[in-house]
């Protein structure tokens, strides 16, 4: 189910502007990789290149390699739609489809792709996905209600259920807790711990404690100045990063002596 991604010499551009420069990193399978760094340093941009969501923006493109199990995500003839089915994504703000019920939201990946599914199979998929997202017990009696009737934390877990219902290999999370209260955040973090058994997870976060709590490896991004591209400064095991980072900038950022 889960795969590793090897990224080498990756550059990301918005038109003429180079947003992220020269990233080389390995994302291990069945582990949580956290990306930290100041705002505007290209963490989210980099994350979005991993499922080719980046190129939704006009004029954006990528050079370099991102190889998932021997297959270059940016190789010739690779369909971005197929990549996105293998690499799911959870966004900063919960975004359930407002026209769909909770049930239909979980099945959105199936329904929007016009695939047919037996009612029993669909029911099973909804239950397993919602259970996987720790939401089943809270919503099982009101599956036909609109997704927007849930609380913010529940909506975010619904979005996670929706992402894992298409059975991806990798799950990208772009600040999944930044719009949530501490209790919902805790629920999501526990969920990330469980999902690690089956999925490769990459999470962007501004919350250093969160990175320390949930991740196995941490990468620190930084930017030399406005208009300069973001770079990966250092990447190591989370425990090492937070106790004895090898670069001074990392230590400054983590200990709050940044800038």
């Amino acid at each position: 189910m889960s795969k590793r991604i090897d990224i080498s010499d990756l550059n990301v551009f918005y038109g003429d502007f180079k947003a992220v420069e020269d990233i080389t990193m390995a994302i291990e399978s069945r582990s949580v990789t956290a990306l930290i760094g100041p705002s505007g340093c290209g963490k989210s941009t980099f994350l979005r290149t991993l499922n080719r969501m980046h190129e939704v923006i006009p004029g954006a493109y990528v050079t370099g390699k991102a190889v998932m199990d021997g297959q270059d995500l940016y190789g010739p003839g690779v369909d971005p739609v197929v990549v996105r089915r293998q690499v799911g994504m959870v966004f900063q703000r919960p975004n359930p489809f407002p026209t769909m019920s909770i049930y239909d939201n979980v099945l959105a990946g199936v329904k929007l792709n016009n695939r047919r599914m037996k009612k029993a199979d669909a029911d099973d998929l909804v239950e397993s996905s919602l259970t996987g997202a720790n939401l089943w017990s809270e919503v099982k009696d009101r599956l036909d209600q609109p997704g927007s009737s849930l609380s913010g934390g529940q909506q975010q877990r619904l979005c996670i259920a929706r992402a894992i219902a298409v059975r991806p290999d990798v799950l990208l999370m772009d600040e999944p807790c930044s719009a949530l209260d501490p209790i919902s955040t805790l629920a999501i973090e526990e969920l990330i711990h469980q999902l690690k058994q089956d999925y490769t997870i990459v999470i962007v976060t501004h919350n250093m404690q969160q990175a320390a709590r949930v991740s196995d490896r941490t990468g620190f991004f930084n930017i030399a100045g406005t208009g300069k591209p973001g770079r990966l400064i250092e990447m190591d095991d989370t425990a090492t990063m937070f106790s004895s980072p090898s670069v001074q900038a990392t230590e400054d950022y983590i200990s709050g002596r940044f800038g």
Partner: protein
Amino acid sequence: MTTVATSAENRIRRLPAWAPWAILAASMALAAGILALGQGPTIAGVLLIGALLYVVAITAVSRAVEGHRYAKDRLATTLVTAAFLIAMVPLVSLVITVVVNGIGALSLDFFTTDMVGVFGQDPGGGAYHAVIGTLYVVGIAALVSIPLGIFTAIYLVEYGGGRIKRAITVLVDVMTGIPSIVAGLFAYSLFLLIFGPAYRSALVGGVALAVLMTPVVVRSVEEMLRLVPNELREASYALGVPKWLTILKVVLRTSIAGITTGVMIAIARVTGETAPLLITVGLANNVNYDAFDGRIATLPVYVYRQYSQGGASVDRAWAAALTLIVIVMALNLIARLVSRYFSPRGLR
């Protein structure tokens, strides 16, 4: 002790709820009195002078009792309410006039007979043929311009960029301003070139109305598509849904209520067009079920023709005008129901 004193000072003296009404009544009475001294009061005169007196009086009274901040609020409220009432006057007056004049000649016969054998100022006759004709012409216009407009709007919002997009936007804006008679002449000469002279049919009228309707549809659908949050598109892409399915099942589905309303309003607008139909489809006395050949009657042209004949024809004109208004209002009502039915659940 000090806190009690402060709260007493902070308490605001307000006018009682009946005060504005009393002032309004007094203003009107005063206006009637003033006019009675002159040439005698008329309804319009009393309302106009009474309203002006009321604006001054309510502001002055409020300033004396409540202070200048509340006085400004009263003044603004009064002006905004007055603007609303003034805007309502022509609408209500028009509806009342048409209903009063039109209801008399309206009968089942009116909707089942045409004008064959009814000459000049004879009584009898009906608008069955004109209702059919209007449905034909507007139906053709809708058939052409709804898909054209929606696809253009999708191109502009989802695909287009750079120079082509800007060119289309400008052209659509220019098209919105085309005088309806020019659209009629365009359709007339287009079919003149293809089918030769003396070709008249509902099709020509439909094309003329489509020229007027398409830009309206494009603009309203474009606005609606832009309202769909980008997050929903991204959520769909991230699930591995191709772009065209995302547009079809997420973007259009989310904005279907607004699109329906916009399209219905566009239809309602062209339903009352007279000038282009006068040129392109002319007028007939009999029912023409063939949309591709021959003159056909439409309600606006029918009204125009009947009214210019005088006598009993004027009653038919009023009845047909009422029919036209009812059709347009029914379309608006349907649009509202549809948009309510489709609007995203939980946001209602």
